[in-house]
């Protein structure tokens, strides 16, 4: 499609001539785009906030031994088949974790990979016992994931030997404070005395029922030869799923589970939200398209006399159609520009409002995509809408106009 300069000139004169009509439709598009920019930013911000709260202080991918009984490992020809045995060693713990660690260290997307030892135990106090989760960690890796230092209520973060940290929930239940010594029993019935070095509050009740000690101490305490899991955080949380699959396939004997798998309900909730916001966007776009189509159809009728003259003077059908496509696109483009500004203003106002009223502060996510997508869609649908009057303009017979005055 080759545009001629006069088509632009005529299109703009037509638009300028029907100034109030043009301004109204541009405003209409602008409001539509603004609503979309705001809505998308709001949804995006909300979702990111929710995800951050859910998984910000937890691993994005957990590499753990498979829960099911391991399959026999094929090790060679038929003679040896009889000797195949279940590979017990990787059954309930990861023995060769340093090897995995080396592999993981080479993957760019991974921010941190921390070896962990998990187990159950009981804090014994007098006649009562309180169930806790025992977690053995290495620093600084584990702190990247759990942000223990940031979330310390008191004490400090130096687990080592029999010095441990306990969650705020365990501390409240048992009445233990920083500096106290307590007896911790493992599931096998043996136990030891530990000293509380600090108390943390991670915001979730399960996490606040933990007793955190050094990895090595936890291994001996829980009688684990290897480790229980490798916990991983990644740069892009949404890439965790794919990476987990990849790791699972690479490693074979252990399974890699992403946060998405563990939070299916959250995700389906988010997806429902996505669907509803997509629907809102669709209907906003539809109304923009219909609005422009109807206004341009009116312009096409209003200008049929001019089109007749232009055609008599040698404007061909394609040119006549393009005059309307240009009008549609121009209004869409102008509307999108104004809409972006309005949408950004609205978003800023919203953030300012929530901050100053002390309400829940989550950052609305203003990304280039969030802004450009609705704008491009609006401009595109405006151009599409223009096809209706454009076809009319193309089909107009100059004689009708000239005859009928």
């Amino acid at each position, binding site marked *: 499609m080759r545009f*001629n*300069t*006069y088509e632009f*000139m*005529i299109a703009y*004169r*037509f638009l*300028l*001539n029907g100034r109030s009509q043009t301004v109204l439709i541009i405003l209409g598009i602008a409001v539509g785009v603004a609503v979309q920019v705001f809505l998308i930013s709001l949804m995006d911000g909300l979702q990111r906030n929710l995800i951050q709260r859910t998984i910000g202080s937890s691993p994005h991918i957990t590499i753990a031994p498979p829960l099911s009984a391991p399959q026999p490992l094929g090790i060679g020809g038929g003679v040896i088949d009889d000797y195949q045995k279940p590979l017990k060693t990787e059954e309930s713990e990861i023995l060769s974790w340093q090897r995995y660690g080396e592999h993981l260290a080479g993957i760019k997307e991974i921010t941190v990979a921390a070896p962990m030892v998990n187990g159950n135990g009981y804090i014994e106090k007098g006649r009562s016992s309180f169930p806790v989760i025992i977690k053995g960690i290495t620093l600084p890796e584990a702190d990247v994931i759990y942000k223990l230092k940031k979330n310390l209520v008191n004490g400090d973060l130096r687990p080592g030997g029999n010095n441990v940290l306990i969650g705020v929930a365990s501390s409240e239940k048992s009445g233990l404070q920083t500096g106290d010594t307590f007896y911790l029993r493992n599931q096998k019935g043996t136990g030891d005395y530990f000293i509380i070095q600090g108390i943390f509050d991670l915001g979730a009740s399960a996490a606040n029922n933990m007793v955190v000690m050094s990895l090595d101490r936890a291994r001996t305490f829980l009688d684990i030869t290897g480790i229980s899991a490798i916990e991983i955080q990644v740069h892009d949380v949404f890439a965790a799923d794919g990476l987990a699959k990849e790791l699972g396939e690479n490693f074979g004997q252990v399974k890699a589970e992403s946060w998405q798998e563990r939070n299916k309900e959250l995700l389906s909730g988010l997806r429902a939200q996505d669907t509803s916001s997509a629907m809102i966007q669709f209907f906003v776009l539809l109304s923009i398209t219909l609005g422009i189509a109807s206004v341009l159809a009116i312009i096409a009728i209003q200008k049929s*006399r*001019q089109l*007749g*003259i*232009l*055609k*008599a*003077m*040698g*404007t*061909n*059908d*394609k*040119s006549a159609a393009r005059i309307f496509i240009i009008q549609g696109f121009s209004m869409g483009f102008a509307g999108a520009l104004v809409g972006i500004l309005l949408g950004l203003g609205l978003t800023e106002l919203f953030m300012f409002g929530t901050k100053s009223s002390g309400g829940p502060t989550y950052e609305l996510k203003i990304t280039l995509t969030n802004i450009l997508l609705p704008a491009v869609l609006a401009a595109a649908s405006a151009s599409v809408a223009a096809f209706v009057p454009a076809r009319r303009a193309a089909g107009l017979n*100059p*004689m009708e106009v*000239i*005859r009928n*005055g």
Partner: protein
Amino acid sequence: MDEIIVLEQVNKFYGDEVVVQVLFDIDLSIKSGQFTAFIGPSGSGKSTLLNIIGLLEAPTSGKVSLDGQDISGLNKGEQASYRNEKIGFIFQFHYLLPEFTALENILIPHWIGKGKPPQEIVGRAMYLMERIGIEQYGGKYPHQLSGGQQQRVAIARSLINQPKIIFADEPTGNLDSKTSGMVMELLKEIVRENKTNLVMVTHDRDIAAGADRVIEIVDGRINCDFTAGRMGREKVRQELEHMACTFSSADDA
């Protein structure tokens, strides 16, 4: 080129279910350098004939040649560019584009065909405006001009691309008689100066009397065909007087 317009066996039918024949086997040839007037009552088919010659409508059958070129086979796009290059139109209701100034209106045919007009073409537009006495109105919009002024802008516009033929459909139809006479004189002069051909549909006896050739169309056929040169203008005028009924019925339209 001796013959500017040649029509051979041109027929025109309208309608799909109820078919009406508007033109019947028209054979016509018009010499170059003439002012030809078509007259006839309303519904006689004269405007249809003019539209066919002007490539605004296609004949149902027959052959039309303009300036030696058979135009019957042109497609819509080719017709549009042919109109742009070779034909200038002047209509009864002036039909200027209200969104554009007088000067811009004059330049639009060039703009459609060849894009932004160079200084030379703008100069030509200025000359034409000066020649027809509207040079001071170049920046005015059509609604700021009188009917006669608008029609003069239309004349200048029809000439900008130096067309072979100017088609004028009742160019003075809604002008008062004094303005009408002025516009006609101007049109004839400028057509002569530009060495182009003028073909006109008119109801006005006086205007028809000023033509080199008068062709009367009645019921889709050529009824009378006078050439002023052969008969003398007075004779033409007398003949036209006898067709008073034709004119009065046309004037009612």
